[in-house]
């Protein structure tokens, strides 16, 4: 069996600690990826069904029966992509944590890996974000088919980093929600949080066009999802009114940092009893 840890080992420098943290992060993330491979169809079904029907009804049926203008489809798709990505990341992160901490407790072995605790929290966040990105990547071609429109390769490439950033934002919010809320209350909190997020996130409308409904525009401005929808519109339908991309990016990065910090703090509190 290995012996005592020597003093030089104890005085490990910052570089060594970073290597340890990176290793812990990688190992914890790998475990989730390993298990997820079996669950991809279930994950996609969970996160893609609702946006698919929103695309079908709002972007196709309403246009077909003449209640909505034809160019609405181009406005809707970036919004639905934002919603799918953000909520996919949020739900997967939050529900996964609630389950891990309160039901299976199988996270405990990872909490004992020889790396700082925040690395496990970051791995959970990265995994949730990855699932969000996966959901977003799947909904785009479905959107093309249902809405009968197309993005140029340049638009797709520009949208991809925004999708990643939006997924990080959703995962950070999920880390926060999943550790701040008691497990028995999670269903209530989802109901309270998800519906308002969905309808105040500029999913179905460009935010600048709300100027005649100022109170609602201000409400939407508080939702980070608004900035993801608007940033995606900026790169996929630049002719439509939208929040300038630099503002959208700044708010999204800020949201990731704040929600991520709160989430890591919550994760530590849960992990350390």
């Amino acid at each position, binding site marked *: *069996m290995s*012996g*005592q840890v020597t003093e030089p080992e104890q005085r*490990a420098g910052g570089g060594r600690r970073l290597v340890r943290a990176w290793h812990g992060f990688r190992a914890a993330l790998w475990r989730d990826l*390993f298990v997820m491979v079996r669950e991809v169809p279930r994950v996609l079904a969970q996160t893609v069904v609702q946006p698919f029907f929103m695309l079908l009804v709002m972007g196709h049926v309403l246009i077909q029966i003449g209640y909505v203008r034809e160019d609405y489809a181009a406005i809707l798709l970036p919004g639905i992509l934002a919603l799918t990505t953000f909520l996919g990341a949020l739900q997967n992160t939050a529900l996964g944590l609630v389950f891990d901490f309160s039901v299976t407790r*199988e996270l405990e072995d990872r909490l*004992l890996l*020889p790396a700082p605790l925040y690395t496990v929290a970051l791995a959970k966040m990265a995994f949730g974000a990855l699932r969000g990105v996966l959901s977003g990547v799947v909904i785009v071609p479905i959107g093309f088919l249902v809405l009968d429109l197309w993005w140029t390769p340049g638009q797709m490439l520009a949208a991809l980093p925004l999708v990643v950033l939006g997924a990080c934002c959703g995962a950070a919010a999920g880390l926060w929600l999943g550790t701040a809320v008691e497990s028995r209350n999670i269903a209530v909190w989802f109901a309270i949080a998800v519906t308002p997020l969905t309808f105040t996130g500029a999913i179905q409308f460009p935010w600048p066009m709300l100027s005649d409904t100022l109170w609602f525009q201000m409400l939407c401005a508080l939702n980070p999802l608004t900035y993801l929808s608007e940033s995606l519109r900026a790169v996929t339908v630049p002719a439509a009114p939208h929040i300038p991309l630099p503002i959208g990016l700044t708010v999204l990065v800020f949201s990731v940092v704040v929600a991520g910090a709160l989430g890591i703090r919550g994760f530590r509190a849960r992990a*350390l009893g």
Partner: protein
Amino acid sequence: MTADDGAVTARGLVKVYPKRDRPAVDGVSFAVPRGEVFGLLGPNGAGKTTTIGVLTTRVVPTRGEARVGGVDLMRDGAQARRVLGVVSQHNNLDRGLSVHQNLVMHGLYHGLPRRERRRRADALLEEMGLADRAGDRVDHLSGGQQQRVKIARSLLHEPSVLFVDEPSTGLDPQSRLFVYDKLTELHERGVTVVITTHDMEEAARLCDRVGIMDRGRLIALDTPAALTASLPEGTHLDLAVDVGTVGARQLAKALAECPGVESVEQVEPASGGRTGTGTAGGSEEDDGAPTRFRLRTEADPTPVLAAVLQVIGGLGCEVRDVGVRRPSLEDVFIGLTGRGIR
């Protein structure tokens, strides 16, 4: 021994949880030398698991210092986790993985190369008699098998200190013996083992030294032999009596007058308060449960027991249970707290 040459040292550990009327751990200090099997013994709620939680970096103490394998837990918990292994009381195996994958993944968490973690997983499953279950999902195993997988997993990174929380709780006798054998083998291989238990026999059987905990405090610490040697000489007669209308106090008084009886104690369950020792006091029974007495004698127990039973029968009381035994760790606990441990 200095603070640094032990495998585990705890100094003045205090853990206060919000909205609790008393600390879960209240000033606990002890040191465990390398290679020792050390037991924390006490009833549920005594603070054993919280103490283990602190020593395994899973609980942040309110005050105090702790070192494991020479590493200061408050300064570098991540480093400490390299040298400690943990077997928790509940099943925290990864249900998303097979038995073998649980071990291999643990090796990955600890940075072992792929080939080495597979080799160790194979060897440990063989050693634990689980080689034929390697590919099974952990949900399909019995409680005893799951405990064995948990032990195997905790050993995969070859810790120098192993913490085992309630090693045999919920196990059938065969699995319990298997776990005892494994812990004994680890001890022989020089691994320091710290267990928590509320089972006196388990503590006496496995541990080189035992720390007795009650209400967050460490109230005694020594070898099982030294702890029981501190008790008065003699034999204990344990009696459960339906006292009827006579009452516990009157019966205790009558028993104390029996020839050969040195002392009579009325023993309350773990949740009860302390009663007087030496002679019985306490309240009368009012819930229909038998009243428990512990008599000590230095004489041949057989005639003493005969006399005691005659006295009980003469008062019209009914004996529900009788036990004759040498003083054990349970008596140490009762002597210190006035309560039974279970």
